[in-house]
């Protein structure tokens, strides 16, 4: 009896650990050595600065001046006595809420068109993807400024049809809109992912449904969208994260103006960090943005079980 318990105990303990768990921790050192370049890069260039900025956010660190620990005072100031924080957070939220759905819709729409096998389709795909390659650059921002300026091409174009133009970029009501348009125009990579997803949808589904008499609209909502929902989920998260960090075009095209209409959060953060050198305060702003992005992502993930459908998944989605 004694002998048998002694003999079985270790094996029972072993059995409790899943094979997955065991292999993970007994992985040979060689494996870690192979990933060490990435690991070192991650620790030194990502993890270390990340936590250092968390530390700075509790200090009054200003460049070239002695630093001291001030607890949560930066955060208190941001939330209670900083109108620019509220203004820039508001602009950023509007921007995220407007640009993300528009961009996804544009990308999906174009992907649906490009899905068809037409002669020379790869040329169209390349041409449509092209703006995304150059999209985030300063050059395009400058181009945008000229297109939508007072004497820009856009005004000349609508002038032909008898409409009177205005300074789209320099008017407070339309400035953010032109920046959103620029973002929407850069739908290329989102579109490519949609395209890949669309090609994964088996054709039998469409054939079967058309036999049952489903029209195109029904097919789109009953087949395409549910089958595409995991990809939509991914693209949504990517677009939201990207939109929160929007900086280049607001900096180059409008520099936050006119009347702070395009004063996005990242621009305010930049101003605090690099024109006022208040890195402690800027770090606190950065962490608030991070928490904001994480919250948005978690919210989306949470709702995903109600609308994201996995083909082989019988837990969520349409239970059969």
């Amino acid at each position, binding site marked *: 009896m004694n002998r048998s318990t002694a003999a079985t105990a270790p094996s029972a303990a072993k059995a409790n650990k899943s094979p997955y768990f065991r292999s993970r921790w007994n992985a040979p050192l060689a494996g870690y050595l192979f990933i060490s370049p990435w690991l070192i890069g991650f620790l030194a260039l990502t993890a270390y600065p990340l936590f250092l900025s968390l530390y700075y956010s509790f200090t009054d660190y200003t460049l070239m001046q002695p630093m001291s620990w001030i607890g949560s005072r930066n955060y208190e100031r941001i939330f209670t006595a900083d109108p620019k924080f509220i203004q820039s957070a508001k602009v950023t939220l509007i921007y995220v809420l407007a640009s993300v759905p528009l961009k996804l819709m544009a990308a999906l729409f174009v992907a649906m068109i490009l899905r068809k096998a037409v002669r020379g389709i790869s040329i169209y795909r390349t041409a449509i993807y092209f703006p995304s390659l150059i999209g985030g650059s300063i050059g395009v921002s400058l181009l945008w400024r000229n297109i939508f300026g007072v004497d820009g091409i856009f005004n000349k174009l609508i002038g032909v049809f008898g409409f009177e133009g205005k300074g789209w970029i320099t008017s407070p009501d339309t400035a953010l809109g032109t920046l959103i348009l620029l973002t929407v125009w850069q739908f290329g990579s989102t579109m490519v992912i949609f395209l890949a997803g669309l090609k994964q949808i088996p054709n039998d589904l469409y054939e079967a449904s058309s036999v049952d008499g489903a029209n195109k609209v029904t097919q789109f909502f009953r087949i395409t969208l549910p089958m595409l929902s*995991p990809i939509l989920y991914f693209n949504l998260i990517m677009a939201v994260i990207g939109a929160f960090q929007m900086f280049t075009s607001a900096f180059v095209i409008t520099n936050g103006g006119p009347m702070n209409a395009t004063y996005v959060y990242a621009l305010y953060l930049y101003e605090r960090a690099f024109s006022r050198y208040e890195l402690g305060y800027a770090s606190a702003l950065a962490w608030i943005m991070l928490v904001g992005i994480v919250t948005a992502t978690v919210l989306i993930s949470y709702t995903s079980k109600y609308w994201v459908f996995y083909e082989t998944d019988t837990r969520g989605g349409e239970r059969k």
Partner: protein
Amino acid sequence: MLKWKRSLTVLAMTALLGTMTACGGGANNNNVEPAAEPAGSNTAATTAPSNTAPSNEPVKLRIMWWGSQPRHEATLAALELYTKNNPNVTFEPEYSGMDGYLDKLSTQAAANNAPDIIQLDPGWMPDWMGRSQLAELAPEVDVSKFDGKLLAGGQLDGKQYAVPLGSVAFGMVYDKAAMDKLGIASPANGWSWDDFFALAKESKSKLPSGQYFTIDYAGNYFMYSAYQYARGKGQVITDDGHFNVDQATFLEWTKKFEELRKEGLVPPADLNASDKEFDPQMDLMAAGKVLFRYSFSNNLGTWDSIKPGAYALVTMPRAEEAGGWLKPSMYLSVSKNSKHAEEAKKFINWFVNDPEAGNILQTFRGLPANKDIATSLEASMSDLDKLGLGLLRATEPDGQTWSAGAGGWTNFIDKDWVLVRDQLSFGKVTPEKAFEQLKEASQSYEK
């Protein structure tokens, strides 16, 4: 199928992690050297500090300035000459327009990666010296031939951190050719603000649609400063760092512009906000949309290169006191972190004191602050330079005393005033509200 769709979730998480880097990294550039640091300065950084200088070791100096094309060309020619005389010294110039210059420089400085030699605006000097970002220039740079008033802006606690490159007068430039054509009389030096506003009203019937008298300066920091000076109410921000906008004067000024706005004598707000000084298309005067704008005496060459022979200068209008002033155009200094400070100072000494250099650089940075060089240039000046000098001489006798002002207010001028400028021009705030707003914004800058 399942696997790769699931892996999208993993990808999304990775992307989220990427964001964290983006936020964290942004605020920490001083700890992580940017990858884009030029190779030249890296190799040089490993050599020993060149305190025991005049070696023939190859040295590469980074130098940064802003300006227009003629200034770029002259400066590059001077650098070339210096390399010819000192073959071991080569340069890595970084030059651009004024747009974004301070942003770029500040970001580099925050990353401990400022150029060795930096051109700075007088208004930034208190900040840069106060933060100990500059190296002392004595004894390598000889300033014995410089005007003491101009030197003062580059001094802190009796030490010289920057040399003035020239002196300029703050006045106005106007489109003389267009005004002659429209039959509007040209102003004369010494004119008053009353003359200015009277001329505006008078021009109303003569201006075709789409053309305006002047830019909407209601919320312009520099123009309002000139007006407040002229009314004898002193600086807008005092030397010891206090908000000093005189309420009555501010209301008077903004209401006069409100009238101009109602009469269509200043451009509509969206056009006004699109103005970009010196840009051939976007500068409202260069584009033929306004007649008057403010200018420094050394800028005439730039306007002239856009539309030769069209423009002329006049003093800033006055009231009880003069409206304009003389000021140092810009300063040249050496970054405190420069690995080649000695070579950089040697170069600056040559740049500001050598007659040959002076001859190349002409007056592209204002009338040189070195008196000997200024005198020698005056003898052979072009007509254009003489017009600039004319404004300088007309402003000199009773001009306001320029001061670099208090440190730490740059952002107030660049952001808070600009917001008020737009709000006034779009008619979103009353002059009274604009004043309150400026006053409120100033509180976060008060010492």
